[in-house]
């Protein structure tokens, strides 16, 4: 099972902050998004992290990972 997290404006667009999904085939961050959000194209400029490290959309994911999607950060 993979935990998906959404933050900030993307969390509002999606309507929830956490989702969980089981995968039975190899997936990347991008294909995982499509699996979890089949009717919503991934917005431009979205950042992605796997297990709290920044990764690209082609990064592989596996059950047990935490995969996060969020807009550019603005802290400080």
């Amino acid at each position: 099972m993979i935990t998906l997290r959404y933050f900030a404006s993307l969390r509002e667009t999606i309507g929830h902050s956490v989702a969980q999904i089981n995968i039975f085939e190899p997936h990347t961050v991008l294909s995982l998004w499509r699996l979890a959000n089949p009717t919503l194209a991934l917005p431009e400029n979205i950042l992605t992290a796997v297990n709290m490290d920044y990764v690209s959309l082609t990064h592989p994911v596996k059950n047990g990972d935490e995969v996060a999607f969020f807009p550019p950060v603005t802290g400080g």
Partner: protein
Amino acid sequence: MTVKICDSAFEPFIEIEKFQHGLALQGKFGATSIFIGTMRDFNNGDDVQAMTLEHYDGMTQKQLAKIIVSAKTQWRILDCLIVHRVGEIFPNEPIMLISVWSAHRGDAFEACRYLMEELKANAPFWKLETLATNKTRWVSNSSF
């Protein structure tokens, strides 16, 4: 090297002084470079009445730890403290502080600036502003 995430108001000078008082390196630091970010009551030409800072708990700490390790490979740092507020913040309240202690000023200045730029670029915080008109908006990175 300490990172603190606070969900209520903090006093930056008290945080720094307390931390400095506990340093094992009394007499060894000649230079302290500090940056404090404070909430303004305006942004992008609009009056702002409040802000909510969201973050990715866990990833924030992981990213800040990586940034500090990276700074330590580049400059001679004796110690550093990062405190970052989350949650609802009002104008004039501190948002974050970075303080770097080192023997010499070049290391302190440059590491402090580096930590701040890396924090802005990589630490997963997001600002939701409430304008004076009661409208809310997410702050985009380009506004800074």
